[in-house]
């Protein structure tokens, strides 16, 4: 009212100009919001659905904002007539990019009987198949009001039967009042509080039972008990009775079922897992999920029934979380060791003849069953995010019916003790057990390793012997490939020396009797023979390399007196030093039974020398040639050639 007065006041003072300006500013948002809508008509895709879409939208800051009607459909008459058509229709409204107002989803999988008739100027074809129809309303993206989900079987264009039907009432996404889910044989009814928590009695009626077949009793979200009637027998399972701890509200989904299973005694578990109520809830969840898959692309709000339940809550503190991480780590290591030991075929054979081995392996089996597997279960609870919804005692009871075990007498005889005492920090105790178990397994592994290592060493020595023989044979092959008339005798002789050298070493090996010594020496020899093989390969290449150098160090010169082109050797001092000093030096080194360690250096030096020879042809070597004039020492020549020489020789 005051404003009116003020307006009057302004007007009375003839300030109409100000009012007009203020008016313009006030109107700007209106102008902005009253943008024109565009319509899209054409091919469209959401997830696996491809069809024709027709919708209106606005364009703001490069973003397409869905606003107004939305229709997306696909049907293929040709496919229907030929075989089968999977059609769909999605129809609704958007407001500011959120589903709003009434929506319909229809999915069909139809076949035709391929007979048509003409009715009122239209060809009519009868169809049979399955149809899912979902109807409801959204408000700002949240389901609101009653949502129905119906699955029907259609025969000759008529509904033959309803195979599933659910009807749930929402208020802005939160289930309200009561719901009803039914299939062909049974029907579940239940109700919620205004905050979506399950409440009171959820009852399942079945065609096979006169009375209620199953009933879940909730009290403000807490499932207190389940009553099941089967063929006149009634049983009751107490779930959460008299909760002392704090609680947490969670969604009734698979995780809730996992928590329930942990609560139940073993014989009760099948009752729950086979529960018809759960089956119907699960079926309903899956149908809602199919709609959510479509909407998730265009609606940020999850489309789900979101039935709320309350469960006891035991939050994990930091030290407990740390313990859990550690025990997981130790347990993984332990599992690896135990698996290795259990799968070791040599141990499996040795077990038959060695009592001690059998005893140790039996204890590994026991540890695996009584410690490692239960700890693995705790790990799984953690991964399923249910560890904090169950008391520490219940966890221990669930994995160890008789309490946390302890290990004692590790060094002498394995023994697993069970402690029935309840420890204050359960996870810390388990972590300790986990670490001790690993230590114990490592000790067992060492002991068993000792038992098999002798056998393994012998086996290994045999393998190495085979390798050595094949290496020696290769040297013979190399030597054979080389005995040609064109190759100077010295090369063949040097190759022979290598072979003799290898043979000597092999004889020395054969004379050893101690298995350990033999194995060590065999390992050494395999490496050594490899080096000798390489020396052989290098020597075989030498004559060829020398020819290459010879050709490289030739110039073609025109001799006017003979009128012919003649080859002239250039840089003679270099080629002479290479041919007459270095090559004999290399061969001599091999002849003097080159040690295995020096072999690699030898091969490298020969290779580097050849490379340098190729390079020096193009280099200015006048100074070098002068220095080579009277030089006969191969090491000095190698140095002058800038080839890194054999280190040992330099000392």
């Amino acid at each position, binding site marked *: 009212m005051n404003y009116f007065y003020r307006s009057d006041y302004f007007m009375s003072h003839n300030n109409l100009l100000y009012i007009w300006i203020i008016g313009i500013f006030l109107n700007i948002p209106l102008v902005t919001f009253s943008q024109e809508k565009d319509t899209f008509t054409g091919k469209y895709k959401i997830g696996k659905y491809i069809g024709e879409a027709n919708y209106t939208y606005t364009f703001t800051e490069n973003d397409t904002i869905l606003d107004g009607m939305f229709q997306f459909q696909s049907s293929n008459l040709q496919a229907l007539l030929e075989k089968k058509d999977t059609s769909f229709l999605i129809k609704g409204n958007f407001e500011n990019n959120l589903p709003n107002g009434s929506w319909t989803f229809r999915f069909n999988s139809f076949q035709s009987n391929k007979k048509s008739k003409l009715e009122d100027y239209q060809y009519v074809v009868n169809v049979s198949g399955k149809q899912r129809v979902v109807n409801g309303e959204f408000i700002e993206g949240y389901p609101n009001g009653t949502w129905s989900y119906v699955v029907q079987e259609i025969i000759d264009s008529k509904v033959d039967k309803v195979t599933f039907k659910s009807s749930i009432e929402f208020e802005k996404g939160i289930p309200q009042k009561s719901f009803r889910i039914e299939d062909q044989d049974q029907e579940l009814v239940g109700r919620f509080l205004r905050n979506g928590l399950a409440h009171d009695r959820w009852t399942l009626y079945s065609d096979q039972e006169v009375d209620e077949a199953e009933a879940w009793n909730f009290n403000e979200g807490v499932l207190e008990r389940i009553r099941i009637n089967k063929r006149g027998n009634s049983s009751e399972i107490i779930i959460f009775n008299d909760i002392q701890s704090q609680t947490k509200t969670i969604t009734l989904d698979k995780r809730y079922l996992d928590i329930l299973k942990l609560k139940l005694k073993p014989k009760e578990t099948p009752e729950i897992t086979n529960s018809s109520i759960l089956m119907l809830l699960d079926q309903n969840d899956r149908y809602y999920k199919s709609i959510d898959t479509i909407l998730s692309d265009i609606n940020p709000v999850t489309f789900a029934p979101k039935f709320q339940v309350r469960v006891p809550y035991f939050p994990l503190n930091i030290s407990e979380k740390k313990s859990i991480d550690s025990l997981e780590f130790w347990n993984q290591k332990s599992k690896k060791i135990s698996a290795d030991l259990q799968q070791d075929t040599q141990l499996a054979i040795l077990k038959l003849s060695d009592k001690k081995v059998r005893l140790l392996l039996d204890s590994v089996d026991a540890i695996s069953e009584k410690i490692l597997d239960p700890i693995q279960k705790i790990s799984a609870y953690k991964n399923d995010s249910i560890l904090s919804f169950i008391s520490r005692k219940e966890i221990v009871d669930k994995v160890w019916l008789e309490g946390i075990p302890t290990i004692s007498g590790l060094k002498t005889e394995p023994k697993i003790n069970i402690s029935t005492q309840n420890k204050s920090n359960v996870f810390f105790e388990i972590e300790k057990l986990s670490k001790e178990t690993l230590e114990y397994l490592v000790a067992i592994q060492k002991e068993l390793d000792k038992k098999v290592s002798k056998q393994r060493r012998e086996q290994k020595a045999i393998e190495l012997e085979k390798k050595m023989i094949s290496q020696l044979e290769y040297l013979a092959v190399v030597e054979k490939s080389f005995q040609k008339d064109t190759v100077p005798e010295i090369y063949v002789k040097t190759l022979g020396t290598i072979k003799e050298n290898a043979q000597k070493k092999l004889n020395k090996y054969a004379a050893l009797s101690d298995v350990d010594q033999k194995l060590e020496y065999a390992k050494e020899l395999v490496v050594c023979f490899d080096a000798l093989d390489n020396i052989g390969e290098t020597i075989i290449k030498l004559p060829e390399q020398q020819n290459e150098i010879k050709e490289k160090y030739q*110039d*073609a*010169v*025109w*001799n*006017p*007196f*003979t*009128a*012919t*082109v*003649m*080859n*002239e*050797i250039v840089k003679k001092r270099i080629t002479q030093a290479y041919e007459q000093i270095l090559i004999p030096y290399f061969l001599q080194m091999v002849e003097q039974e080159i040690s295995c360690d020096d072999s690699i250096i030898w091969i490298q030096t020969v290779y580097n020398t050849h490379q340098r020879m190729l390079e020096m042809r193009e280099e200015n070597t006048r100074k070098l040639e002068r220095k080579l004039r009277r030089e006969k020492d191969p090491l000095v020549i190698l140095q002058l050639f800038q080839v890194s020489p054999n280190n040992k020789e330099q000392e």
Partner: protein
Amino acid sequence: MIKNLCTYLVFMLLWMYPITDIQAQDEPATESEFKDPVTKLWINTYGNIRIAKRFFWVAQTHFRFEETEETPFVGQVAQIYNRHAIGYIYSKKFNFSLGGVLRLNFNTDPSSPDRNLVPEWRIWHQYMFAMPLSNMMFYHRIRIEHRWTQDFAEGSKYDFRNRWRYMFKAKIPLNSATLAPKTFYVSPEAELIMQSGKPVVGSPFEDLRLHASFGYILTPRMTVAAGIMYSQGQTLSDGTVFKQNWTARLHLYFSPDFRKVKNKLPAIHLDD
């Protein structure tokens, strides 16, 4: 070029014809007179100095000795001559040269009162053909010289004569598949030298040289050889008198190439 060479060959054959003719027609002399052979030693250096891709400088210096009564072969210096020319390598199988010669002739007649030393001048050009055959090489050399000579007598005038020379030569490697460094070779050689000019009356056949040498190729740039040569020919003043020589010959062949390396390389094979 080839046509010119053919002309020269025909010309030489025509010159050779009168040799026999002269002998038949000259009534007073019923037979030729052959002088006693003179022994000589020639030390010859042959330089072929490469100066460009296709050009070379021919630099030859010959020291020629002759017997005296006391000393065979090397008794006295007979001639020293310098032969120079610029050569052109047309291909591996053909090259030609053009240049001059200064020959210093020593008076070898101990009883002569005349001058001891007179110069002789020549302009010369030669055409050398090389023919590979199996592992041997054969060569045809045509050399034409225009010479100005004078007698040892004081105040003698220069006489002008032309010399027509044809040489056939082979080089046969002995210890190697080709003529390559470190190869010994034998080289038989025959050269016919004809002459013409006003002073030449009935004595066009100046010399026939038959020479065999044994050589060794040290490097592509250096070869040494030694050989013995028999030669005979008409004396200029009297065609019925034939002089004869036995000449021991030593040869040094050298062919330096002072060009920079980068210029040498593409020139080796010329236009292969």
